[in-house]
C-alpha cells in the first residue's frame, strides 16, 4: 500500500496497516524533519520494525541529500537477521511497484566468527580465537613478510579482497550474513572485510549495539560513518546498561598476572628489535615527538566519530617525554602494574573517586596524570611498531592501559571499588578492582553529537522521560503508542493475596515465609489446571527460584502441577537453557502443555518470544529488583541522585518495572495472539509501581484487577480464556485495529489516530 505521510510517499509492503503504525510513522517523520533525536515506545508485535524501515527508506529516497544512511542497531544475531528479512520484503515491494530495479544497498554486519569463510579459522569455537587467528593471517607486516618468504601463511580470501575487492563496490541489493558469505565464496573475497569496507557506501547498515557504543570496536568499524545518518536503537530499554558495561573495567589478580606476562614479552621484544632493527623504534620515536597530529586533523575536519577513550586533549599534544621511548614506557607500565598489585592486596573494601586514585598513585609511584592519559594510545603505537601478531594475547595489557586512560581523563562519572573477596564467599580471597562507569551518557555522547537523528525505540520504555535524563540528551519527540485492539487480548491481573488472605510479596522479610511460598505454589497449580498449552513463570533471581522450587517439592506442589503440565527450568548455563526451551516448545506443540520456570533479567526474559500457544499465561512472581547490596549499584544510585536528581527508589522501581514489563511482554507478540499477565506481588497494586508499566499494559489494568486473591484470579482467567477461544478472523479486526488504505484515509480514522500517540 502507498501511504501519504504528511506529504511523503511511503511504500508499505502489506495490504493492511495498524493504526498505531501510521501514527508511529508520523512521529518518526517529524523527528527526521526536525533533525533531532526521538524516544518512541510501541508495543511489541505491532510491526515496529517494518514501520521504521519503510518510513526511513522512503525518506532516504525522497531526500537523498538530507539522510544518507540508516544505521539500525539491534541486540542479537537473530534479531539482525529478522530486520534484514523485513527489509528484503520492503525492497521487493518497491521494485514491484515502481518497476525499476533496485539501487539500494543494505547489509548486516556481525563479528568475524559469524562471517569467516576460511576453512580452518571458521572452525574455531570462540569469537576471540577467531579474531586472533584472523589477525595472524591478515596483519599488514605478516603480509609484508610473505613478499620475502612465500611460506608464511596468509588468508587467501583477504588477499583476493585486498587485491581487487576495493575497486569494485558491492552490487546493490540486500545482504544478510549468509548472503555475504555466499557472495564472498563466489568471488573468493573475505566477507567480513568486504562488509566492513562496504559499510561506508551502504544505504542501510544493520548491526549490533556494540559497533557504535563500545569505544574499542566503534573506533575500528563505525568511525567514518556519515554525519547525516539516522541511527536507530531497537529494543533499547537496556541501553543504559550496555553503555555502562562498555566503559567499565574489572581487574582481577589473574588479569594482572597475565598483564605481567605481556609486559615481559614487550620488554623482550624491544630488546630483540633493538639488536636487529633499531631503525624502526627510532622511526616510531620521531613520530611520537611530532605528536598525534594526524588524528587531530581528522577529528577537526569531522571525519570521525569521537572516541571517549581518546579524549580531545590528547590529540592536541605530543606524547609526554616520560613515556616517549619504548623502554621508558615499559618501565612505566611495570610501575603502574606493581602499583595495581599493591592495591589489590587490601583486606577491606575500598571505594574512592578518580582524583583520589590519581593522588595516591602519584604519592606511591610518582606517576603523573598526563602520561596515564596517553597510555592507551602509546601502547597501540608500540604494538604496531613491534609487529606483534596475536593482538588477542595482549588483551590484558590493553585493558590496563585503557583503564589508565579512562581513570585520568574522567574526574566524574566513574568510581573505583576494590573488593578483597566476593560477598558470598568472605573467606576466599579473590580481589577485584572494579572501575565502574556510573554515567551511561559518556559512552553514548559521541553518537548523539555526531549523528543527525538518533531514535531510541522499544516495546517497553516507560516512563519515557527517564531515558533522556540518564542518557543526557534532548529529544525532539517523545511518544508512547498504545495498541488498538478489536478485542482485549491481554489480561493483566495483580494478585495480592492468597486464598487464606496472606499477602503475597517477594520482599526480603517474607522471602522465607512458608505461607507465601505455598500460596505462590497454589497460584501456579490452579493456573496450570485452567490455562491451555504453555505457561511461563518468572522469578526475581536464580537463588529465589531454587528456594521456592525446593520447598514446592517438599510440600508436594510440584507433583500436583506435573499432573497438568510438564515443568522446565532455566539455568545460568546457556546450553542447558536452550535445551529446556526446545523441549518446552515440543511439549507445547504436542498439546501436553508445559511450564517454563525462568528468571527475570535472564536469557529467556530478554530475547525469547512465546507466540500463540507457546505462551498463554505469564506469571511474574515478585518484583524483580536488582541486588541492591552491590557496591557498584550503590555508587551508581548515589551518582544518579547527585547528578540527575533521580532518587534511589525511583530508579530501582523503574529498573524493576522495566524488567517486569519485558517479562510479561513475552506472551503478546501480535494482535491475534492473546495471553494472561499475572503480577503476583501486592506491591504492583501501588500507584508508583503500576504507573511505571508501559501504557499499553496499564490501560487494561482497571480497579477490578487489583489486589486479587488466587480464586478471583482463576475466575477472571477462566472468563478471559473462554472469550479468547472464540474464533477470531481477520474481518473482525478490519476497520478497528487493522486498516485498508481507504479506511485509513477516512476523516474519522485520522482523528482517532491522532489520539494514539501519547506525548510526554
Amino acid at each position, binding site marked *: 500500500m502507498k501511504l501519504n505521510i504528511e506529504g511523503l510517499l511511503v511504500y508499505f509492503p502489506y495490504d493492511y496497516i495498524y493504526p498505531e503504525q501510521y501514527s508511529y510513522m508520523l512521529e518518526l517523520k517529524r523527528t527526521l524533519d526536525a533533525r533531532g533525536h526521538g524516544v518512541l515506545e510501541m508495543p511489541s508485535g505491532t510491526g515496529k520494525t517494518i514501520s521504521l524501515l519503510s518510513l526511513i527508506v522512503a525518506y532516504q529516497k525522497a531526500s537523498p541529500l538530507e539522510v544518507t544512511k540508516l544505521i539500525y542497531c539491534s541486540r542479537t544475531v537473530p534479531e539482525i537477521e529478522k530486520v534484514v528479512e523485513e527489509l528484503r520484503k520492503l525492497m521487493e515491494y518497491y521494485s514491484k511497484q515502481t518497476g525499476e530495479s533496485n539501487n539500494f544497498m543494505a547489509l548486516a554486519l556481525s563479528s568475524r566468527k559469524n562471517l569467516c569463510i576460511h576453512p580452518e579459522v571458521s572452525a574455531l569455537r570462540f569469537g576471540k580465537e577467531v579474531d586472533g587467528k584472523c589477525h595472524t593471517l591478515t596483519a599488514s607486516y605478516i603480509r609484508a613478510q610473505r613478499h620475502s618468504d612465500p611460506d608464511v601463511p596468509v588468508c587467501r580470501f583477504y588477499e583476493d579482497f585486498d587485491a581487487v575487492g576495493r575497486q569494485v563496490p558491492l552490487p546493490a541489493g540486500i545482504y544478510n550474513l549468509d548472503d555475504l558469505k555466499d557472495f564472498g565464496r563466489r568471488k573468493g573475497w573475505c566477507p567480513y572485510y568486504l562488509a566492513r569496507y562496504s559499510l561506508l557506501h551502504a544505504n542501510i547498515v544493520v548491526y549490533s549495539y556494540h559497533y557504535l557504543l563500545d569505544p574499542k570496536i566503534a573506533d575500528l568499524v563505525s568511525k567514518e560513518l556519515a554525519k547525516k545518518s539516522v541511527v536507530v536503537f531497537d529494543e533499547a530499554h537496556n541501553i543504559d546498561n550496555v553503555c555502562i558495561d562498555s566503559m567499565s573495567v574489572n581487574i582481577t589478580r589473574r588479569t594482572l598476572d597475565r598483564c605481567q606476562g605481556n609486559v615481559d614479552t614487550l620488554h623482550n621484544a624491544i630488546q630483540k628489535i633493538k639488536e636487529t632493527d633499531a631503525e624502526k623504534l627510532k622511526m616510531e620515536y620521531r613520530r611520537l615527538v611530532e605528536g598525534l597530529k594526524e588524528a587531530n586533523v581528522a577529528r577537526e575536519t569531522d571525519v570521525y566519530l569521537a572516541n571517549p577513550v581518546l579524549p580531545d586533549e590528547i590529540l592536541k599534544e605530543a606524547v609526554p617525554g*616520560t613515556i616517549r621511548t619504548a623502554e621508558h614506557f615499559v*618501565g612505566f607500565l*611495570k*610501575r603502574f602494574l606493581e602499583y595495581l598489585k*599493591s592495591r589489590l592486596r587490601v583486606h577491606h573494601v575500598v571505594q574512592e573517586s578518580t582524583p*583520589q586514585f590519581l593522588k595516591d598513585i602519584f604519592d606511591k609511584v*610518582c606517576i*603523573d*596524570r598526563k602520561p596515564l592519559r596517553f597510555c592507551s594510545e602509546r601502547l597501540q603505537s608500540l604494538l604496531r611498531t613491534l609487529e606483534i601478531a596475536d593482538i588477542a594475547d595482549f588483551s590484558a595489557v590493553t585493558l590496563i592501559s585503557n583503564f589508565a586512560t579512562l581513570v585520568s581523563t574522567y574526574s566524574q562519572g566513574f568510581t573505583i571499588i576494590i573488593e578483597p573477596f566476593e560477598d558470598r564467599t568472605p573467606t576466599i580471597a579473590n580481589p577485584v578492582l572494579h572501575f565502574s562507569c556510573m554515567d551511561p551518557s559518556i559512552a553514548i555522547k559521541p553518537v548523539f553529537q555526531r549523528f543527525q537523528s538518533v531514535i531510541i525505540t522499544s516495546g517497553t520504555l516507560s516512563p519515557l522521560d527517564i531515558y533522556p535524563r540518564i542518557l543526557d540528551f534532548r529529544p525532539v519527540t517523545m511518544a508512547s503508542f498504545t495498541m488498538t485492539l478489536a478485542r482485549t487480548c491481554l489480561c493483566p491481573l495483580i494478585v495480592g493475596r492468597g486464598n487464606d488472605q496472606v499477602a503475597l510479596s517477594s520482599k526480603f522479610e517474607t522471602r522465607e515465609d512458608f505461607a507465601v511460598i505455598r500460596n505462590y505454589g497454589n497460584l501456579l497449580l490452579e493456573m496450570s489446571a485452567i490455562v491451555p498449552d504453555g505457561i511461563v513463570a518468572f522469578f526475581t533471581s536464580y537463588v529465589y527460584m531454587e528456594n521456592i522450587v525446593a520447598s514446592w517439592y517438599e510440600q508436594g506442589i510440584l507433583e500436583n502441577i506435573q499432573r497438568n503440565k510438564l515443568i522446565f527450568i532455566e539455568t545460568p548455563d546457556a546450553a542447558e537453557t536452550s535445551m529446556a526451551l526446545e523441549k518446552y516448545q515440543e511439549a507445547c506443540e504436542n498439546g501436553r502443555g508445559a511450564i517454563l520456570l525462568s528468571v527475570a533479567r535472564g536469557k529467556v526474559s530478554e530475547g525469547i518470544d512465546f507466540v500463540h500457544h507457546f505462551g498463554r499465561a505469564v506469571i511474574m512472581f515478585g518484583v524483580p529488583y536488582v541486588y541492591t547490596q552491590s557496591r557498584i549499584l550503590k555508587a551508581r544510585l548515589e551518582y544518579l541522585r*547527585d547528578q540527575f536528581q533521580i532518587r534511589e527508589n525511583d530508579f530501582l522501581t523503574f529498573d524493576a518495572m522495566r524488567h517486569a514489563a519485558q517479562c510479561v511482554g513475552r506472551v503478546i507478540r501480535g494482535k491475534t495472539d492473546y495471553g494472561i499477565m499475572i503480577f503476583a506481588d501486592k506491591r504492583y497494586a501501588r500507584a508508583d509501581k503500576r504507573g511505571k508499566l508501559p501504557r499499553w499494559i496499564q490501560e487494561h489494568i482497571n480497579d477490578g484487577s487489583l489486589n486479587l486473591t488466587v480464586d478471583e484470579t482463576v475466575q477472571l482467567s477462566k472468563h478471559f480464556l473462554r472469550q479468547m477461544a472464540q474464533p477470531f478472523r481477520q474481518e473482525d479486526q478490519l476497520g478497528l485495529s487493522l486498516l485498508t488504505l481507504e479506511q485509513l484515509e477516512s476523516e474519522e480514522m485520522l482523528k482517532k489516530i491522532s489520539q494514539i500517540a501519547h506525548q510526554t
Partner: protein
Amino acid sequence: MPKLSPLKRMFPGVWRCENCVEMLFVRGSGNCVQCETPLRKSNFRVQLFEDPTVDKEVEIRKKVLKIYNKRDFDFPSLREYNDYLERVEDVVSNLTNNIDVENTKLQMEQYQRENRDLIQKNKVKLTREQEEVEELLLLEKQGNEQRRLELLQEEQRQLQAKRKNKQALLDELEHSQLPATMLLAQHKVRAAKLETQIEQQKQAVKPTSLFSTGINMRQTVSLQPPPRIEEVLYQYKPVHVETYGPPVPELELLSRLGYLNHVRAAMPQDTAGGYTSALACHRAIQDAFSGLFPLKR
C-alpha cells in the same frame, strides 16, 4: 616460632625481618652481622611492591624528582619540556639499572648547582595537573559535606512536617464537629499533598557548578591575558534598495504633496503609540511603486 612480620630491607639489598631490625639496631645504627658494614635503622624500609626493582626505582625516582623539579611553564615550548622529561627518565633508569652511575651522578650534581634557585622556588609549587587533582578533591569533599547536611536538614524538615500534620489531625478530632471519617479523609488528602510538595522540592534542588561570575568551577583559570583579536572598524554604508519603480516621495513630504488627504487620519490613541498616518501611507506607496519597470538585464 615467632610470628612472621613483613620483611624490611635496606638499599641496596640487605634483607631483615622487622623484629630483627628492632633487635639489631636498638641504638639506631649498628654493623651488619655478615660483613661488618655500618648500617642505619632509618634506612630500612618495608617492601611495598612484589618486584624489588620497582621499589628501588621508586625510591630513586623520588630523590631525582626532588632535584629535577622544573614545571612545564619553565619552558618556552611543550617540545622542550618533553625533551627535559625524557632526560629525567634517562637519569632514573641509569641509576636503577646501574648504567654509568658515576657520570649520571656528576650530571645530577651539576644540574643541581646550575639550577639551585629554580629548584628552591619550585619545591612548593605543584604541577598544574596536580593542582587540578587537588582542586577536584577539595570540591569533592565540600560537595559530600554539603550533601550530607542537606540530607539531614531535609529529613528533619520532613519529620517535623509529618509530626505537625499528625498533631493537627488529633486536635481536629478532639474539637471539630465534623464526623471522624470526613476528617480522616481530609487528613489523607493533606498528607498526599505534603508528599507531593516534598517531592517537588527535591526535584527543584539543582547542583551548582558555576561560580557567580559564570566560570565553571571545575576549570582552572588561566591568568594569561586574553588573545588580542585584530578587527577592522565597522563602517556604516547606507542601504540602497533597487525597487524597479519610480522614486517614492520622502516620508516627511507626504502631507505637503497631498498624499495624506485620502488616508484615514490617525486617532489620538494611535498617535500615543507612535503611529502616524504617514507611516501606513508611505508603506502603501512603496508597495504600489515597486516592481513597475521591467527588469534591467
